[in-house]
């Protein structure tokens, strides 16, 4: 059931208890976890933090902890399956779920005792009403009761009553069949597309705000959670802009607290500011040239994998009057005169080259004399740390490292994350360029398909879901811009990369077609399940995102049998 008052029904319930935090491996969940940890530290609530990477992990963690703990908080996992059936908990276990995955499973919505959803009810949910799906079983008993009663009647009357009873029974059965058919249709409509709702970090920030324990650190983490949803393309532009406006109100509330002439704040205090900044990834920690070459938006607009594209880039730089030597230097060492009006100059020139959205609304933070970061920088750095392909690090280790990088006292880790993110972006661009140039994308009827061979450079980076999804999106954008086939531009893309060479497993990701105003709804969850059934190969639908799954190599042969639902929601 949905929680009405998050302070009374969640925080005060767990205030004197020990809780288990089960956190999914994405940046939004990490930020939400940080905010919740800070709140727990203030009030000295004992908790156990368990990172979980998939449904199996979740089940194992639950079994380990179910004896000692009653309260479980799930962050970014668990809303889109029937949790009670999956975990089989005892009657006194209570689950608080704060998850961005939609659609929320109907059992989770209508369970009153054990499942509490920390989700706002007006969050564009479209949950079917109770009567359409659940039906009391009493009516069955009524029928058989009547029959047994009537069995004791004298035979004459029985015949007449029998006919009436039979008719009523037939009528009831027909109504039931209709109801069930309608129920199936409603559920199918409700559950066919997967999409994402409000960021979990923002939900917990609101909790902190209601408790008046919100600090600038927590606000910054909430902003990073929201930006993660935008960077990884999980929410629509409209929703992003609306949420940015909400955050902007909080930012102005915090920054006017003690800033005036006489009481200026120490330089070490954190200052968050609203920025209408460029869409070039990591450009303040890199050189401008590298950033333009490796950001998806600019690289695809110029088509930098072709010679023509390179020439256009040189023209673009010349148009702005930026000397090549300056542009290839580290951003911090560029001339001040160039840096001053950089954003406006770039916006003007990019309009001429057809890039209308080079600037995006975001936030930046600034503390101490040296440290300035944009929210998207933090997202890329933390994502690179979370999915770093080090051999010695288990997944828990990378999780903890990424979590640490979000604190202000671990700037070194954040910088190392930025370096890893740069390598990851370069790898993505090179892979995209090579895929397009060597025509690795095949059109398989209803969808496009690409398989990364084992020998591809940096393929280890792409055995992780977030990196592979990012590559997939960039690749589709680039393909749509470079192909002449009109039909292919409207097709979705399925991508596979080797996950574990010894076991012969691959990780498969599917994304919907590229369009200007997509509503970011993904139908691959159901499609993969059907394909797995039809090829009877072993698949592990382990990830919390249903559009990603692990499979064995045989699964790829079954691709041809994938059939998609008739209606395609891509306006």
């Amino acid at each position, binding site marked *: 059931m949905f929680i009405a008052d998050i302070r009374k029904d969640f925080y005060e319930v767990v205030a004197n208890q020990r809780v288990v935090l089960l956190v999914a491996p994405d940046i939004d969940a990490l930020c939400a976890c940080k905010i919740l940890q800070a709140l727990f*530290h*203030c*009030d*000295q609530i004992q908790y156990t933090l368990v990172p979980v990477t998939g449904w199996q992990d979740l089940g194992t963690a639950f079994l380990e902890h179910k004896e000692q703990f009653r309260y479980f908080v799930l962050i970014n996992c668990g809303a889109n399956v029937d949790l009670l059936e999956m975990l089989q908990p005892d009657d006194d276990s209570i689950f608080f779920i704060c998850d961005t995955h939609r659609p929320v499973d109907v059992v989770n919505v209508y369970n009153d005792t054990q499942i509490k959803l920390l989700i706002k009810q007006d969050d564009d949910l479209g949950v079917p009403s109770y009567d359409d799906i659940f039906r009391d079983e009493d009516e069955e008993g009524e029928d058989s009761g009547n029959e047994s009663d009537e069995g004791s009647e004298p035979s004459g009357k029985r015949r007449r009553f029998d006919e009436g009873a039979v008719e009523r029974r037939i009528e009831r059965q027909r109504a039931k069949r209709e109801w069930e058919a309608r129920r199936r249709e409603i559920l199918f409509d409700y559950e066919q597309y997967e999409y994402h709702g409000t960021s979990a970090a923002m939900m917990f920030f609101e909790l902190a705000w209601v408790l008046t*324990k919100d*600090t600038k650190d927590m606000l910054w983490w909430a902003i990073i959670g929201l930006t993660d949803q935008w960077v990884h393309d999980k929410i629509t532009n409209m929703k992003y802009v609306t949420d940015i406006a909400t955050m902007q109100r909080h930012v102005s509330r915090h920054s006017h607290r*003690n800033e005036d002439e*006489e*009481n*200026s*704040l*120490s*330089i*070490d*205090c954190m200052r968050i500011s609203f920025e209408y900044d460029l869409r070039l990834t990591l450009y303040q920690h890199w050189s401008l040239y590298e950033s333009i070459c490796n950001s998806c938006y600019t690289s695809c607009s110029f088509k930098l994998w072709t010679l023509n594209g390179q020439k256009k880039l040189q023209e673009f730089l010349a148009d702005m009057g930026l000397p090549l030597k300056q542009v290839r230097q580290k951003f911090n060492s560029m001339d001040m005169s160039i840096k001053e009006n950089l954003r406006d100059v770039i916006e003007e020139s990019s309009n001429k080259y057809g890039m209308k959205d080079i600037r995006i609304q975001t936030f930046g933070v600034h503390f101490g004399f040296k440290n300035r970061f944009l929210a998207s920088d933090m997202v890329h750095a933390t994502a690179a740390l979370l999915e770093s392909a080090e051999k010695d690090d288990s997944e828990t280790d990378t999780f903890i490292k990424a979590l640490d990088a979000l604190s202000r006292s671990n700037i070194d880790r954040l910088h190392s994350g930025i370096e890893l993110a740069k390598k990851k972006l370069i790898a993505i661009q090179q892979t995209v360029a090579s895929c397009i140039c060597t025509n690795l994308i095949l059109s398989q009827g209803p969808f496009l398909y690409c398989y990364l061979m084992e020998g591809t450079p940096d393929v280890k980076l792409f055995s992780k879901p977030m990196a592979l999804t990012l590559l997939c999106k960039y690749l589709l954008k680039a393909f749509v811009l470079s192909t002449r086939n009109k039909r292919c531009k409207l097709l979705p893309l399925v991508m596979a990369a080797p996950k574990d060479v010894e076991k012969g497993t691959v990780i498969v990701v599917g994304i919907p077609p590229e369009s200007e105003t997509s509503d970011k709804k993904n139908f691959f969850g159901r499609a993969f399940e059907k394909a797995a059934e039809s090829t009877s190969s072993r698949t592990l639908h382990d990830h919390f995102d249903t559009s990603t799954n692990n499979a064995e190599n045989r699964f790829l042969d079954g691709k041809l049998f994938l059939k998609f639902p008739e209606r395609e929601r891509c306006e």
Partner: protein
Amino acid sequence: MQFPPRFEKLYRKTKNKNVTCRKTAHNNVHFCDTALPVDDVVGFSLPSLSVYAAFSAGTICSAVPVGRKFLNTHTKKQTDMDPSEVEFLAEKEMVKIIPNFSLDKVFLIGGDLGPFNPGLPIDVPVWLALNLKQRQKCRIIPPEWMDVEKLEEMRDLERKEDMFTPVPSPYYMELTKLLLNHASDNIPKADEIRTLVKDIWDTRIAKLRLSADSFISQQEAYAKLDNLTLMEINTIRAFLLDTLNCMYKLRSNVQ
């Protein structure tokens, strides 16, 4: 710290214990016969077997052990206090806070902490103030001396005088560091305060070094240093003791 064997025992017995001492008649200082806690043994002088002892008030004087019966037998081996120990002692100082919660009077071994009411200022020890601040349960009010104009005056006075001037608080350095690290958003002009306190500290340490240098080179038997704080003594303690000891060894070997 190495002593010749016959003095080693005496050193161990004298250190950190109460001894009857007499301030020697140098530079118009009166005699006094009191039992004072010896902070550390600075050195020995051969003729009268007198012990140079440093007291925590910053006075270095010579002590004459009147008899062994006055010396205790437990000793401590360390010659230095860790700066974190000094900080720990500093955390007992009181500071004003404004809590945002309410709590009845708390009875602790070290004293009572009076009832907490939201919005009403109350004096608490620094360790509690910092803990509450980190849990976002209070707002810290900077002590009166932590003000830009007052500190500027003190710094100028310190630079003018040869002797040490009175300090704003016996733990000014530690309190500045603790409060500015954890509660800099409650303290106006925190950066300037940090710079001013560092200036005062630097001037005082320079004076201390100069006086230690002249004490050693002129082979004085007595030096009077008022208004030194524990942290400042702590910075010079190990070095000065070692130096005097070396000097003694050199002198005794030459003779």
